[in-house]
């Protein structure tokens, strides 16, 4: 028999289902949904993806005066269509202002077993108490919001990674939030609350990344696993950041028996030198 397959082969549609799903999960939900028009076979592939990702690209395409309404119409349609578990939810639209729709969505998702939650909207949004019922969470990234868990909150029992950027939170609330997550292995803090003292009690912590100095004194309790510490600064050092360079790092490093890798960037070193040696 002759080999004459001049007809080009559709290799992508013939990939195993799990491979197609993994490719689509690298895309924001809107782009994944757009594949529904490729062919009949692709019609409903996106509705079963366990990752929902909403970013600024779709937001920008709506008319300025009806963005919020259009965006939530879109988000609700996605949720109505969705089938199966939602293990990752990411909403990163820094210009989206606080509104009750967001509370509803976070509340709605509390039954879905979300394991990864990434959230950033316009600054000052108060995280609703329903987020603290996401007991399956393994990775949490919160930016520019106000965090105050309800008194009954007992911790995220499965959380291994937490990133807090530009959040508004009391030192005591932060301490208790961290200490209530017993499996926490990676912690990134990047905000400028002026804390006098912060005690971090996370017995499983392996990686601690401080992206800006924000505290005069940090103490780590039970640091037997903490192998990597990163202290970095943002690229542009503002004059008022010098206040935050006055951090007692000497005592901090004293308490780290398992420290294996320490990274400090140039910007941090510069401020450190200015504060501690030149001034």
């Amino acid at each position, binding site marked *: 028999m002759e080999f004459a397959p001049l007809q*080009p*082969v*559709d*290799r*992508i*549609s013939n*990939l*195993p289902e*799990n*491979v197609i799903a*993994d*490719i*689509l*999960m*690298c*895309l*924001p939900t*809107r*782009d994944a*949904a*757009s*594949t*529904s*028009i*490729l*062919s*009949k*076979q*692709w*019609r409903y592939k996106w509705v079963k993806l366990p990752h929902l990702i909403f970013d600024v690209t*779709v937001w920008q*395409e709506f008319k300025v005066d009806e963005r919020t309404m*259009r965006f939530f*119409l*879109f988000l609700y*349609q996605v949720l109505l269509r969705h089938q199966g578990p939602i293990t990752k939810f990411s909403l990163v639209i820094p210009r989206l202002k606080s509104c009750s729709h967001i509370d509803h969505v976070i509340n709605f998702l509390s039954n879905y077993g979300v394991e990864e939650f990434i959230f950033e909207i316009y600054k000052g949004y108060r995280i609703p108490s329903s987020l603290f019922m996401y007991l399956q969470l393994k990775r949490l990234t919160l930016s520019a919001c106000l965090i105050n868990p309800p008194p009954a909150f007992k911790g995220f029992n499965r959380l291994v990674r937490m990133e807090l950027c530009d959040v508004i939170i009391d030192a005591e609330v932060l301490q208790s939030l961290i200490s209530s997550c017993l499996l926490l292995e990676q912690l990134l803090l990047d905000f400028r609350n002026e804390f006098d003292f912060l005690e971090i009690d996370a017995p499983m912590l392996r990686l601690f990344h401080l992206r800006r100095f924000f505290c005069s004194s940090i103490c780590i309790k039970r640091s037997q696993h903490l192998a990597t510490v990163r202290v970095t600064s943002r690229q542009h050092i503002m004059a008022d950041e010098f206040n935050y360079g006055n951090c007692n790092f000497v005592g901090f490093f004293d308490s780290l028996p398992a420290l294996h*890798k320490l990274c400090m960037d140039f910007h941090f070193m510069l401020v450190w030198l200015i504060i501690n040696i030149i001034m």
Partner: protein
Amino acid sequence: MSSSTELTEKKVFLLKSLDGVIFEVEESVAVQLEVIRELIEGDCARPFISLYNVTSEILALVIEYCKHHAETCSGGTSATIADEDLKTFDNEFMNVDENILLELCSAADYLDIKSLFELTCRTLASLIKDRTIIEVRKMFNVENDFSVVEEKAVRKEFAWAFK
């Protein structure tokens, strides 16, 4: 063939592709193929391993990828430099046509090489993201089997999804 003393120092495995081409690889490369890793680590691997789903053209690329990753990670350079080096290598490595990319993705899934699988998935996703649906169909030879009416209905239903 190397002498037996050398063999005990540096174990070598022979990987046979679908089309019968045999590749000699060191253990540090072979263990990156999770599908055979357990066999190797448990010392149960025959020196000759057939990989039925991978052609020689693709297996050669997979081995090149694993070799570079193994060498960079054991090279004694600092982690940051190694990361940068791998990033540059990965970017250049992904500079292949979409058919090779699909085959690499498929092979990485079959051979269970997590980093290569994620890399190819991300690259394929970016090819889809930057194109209109008509361009995606053309690029991957996906036949549009919707009737005009059906396609119009889907487009209307998910109007927000289309650029």
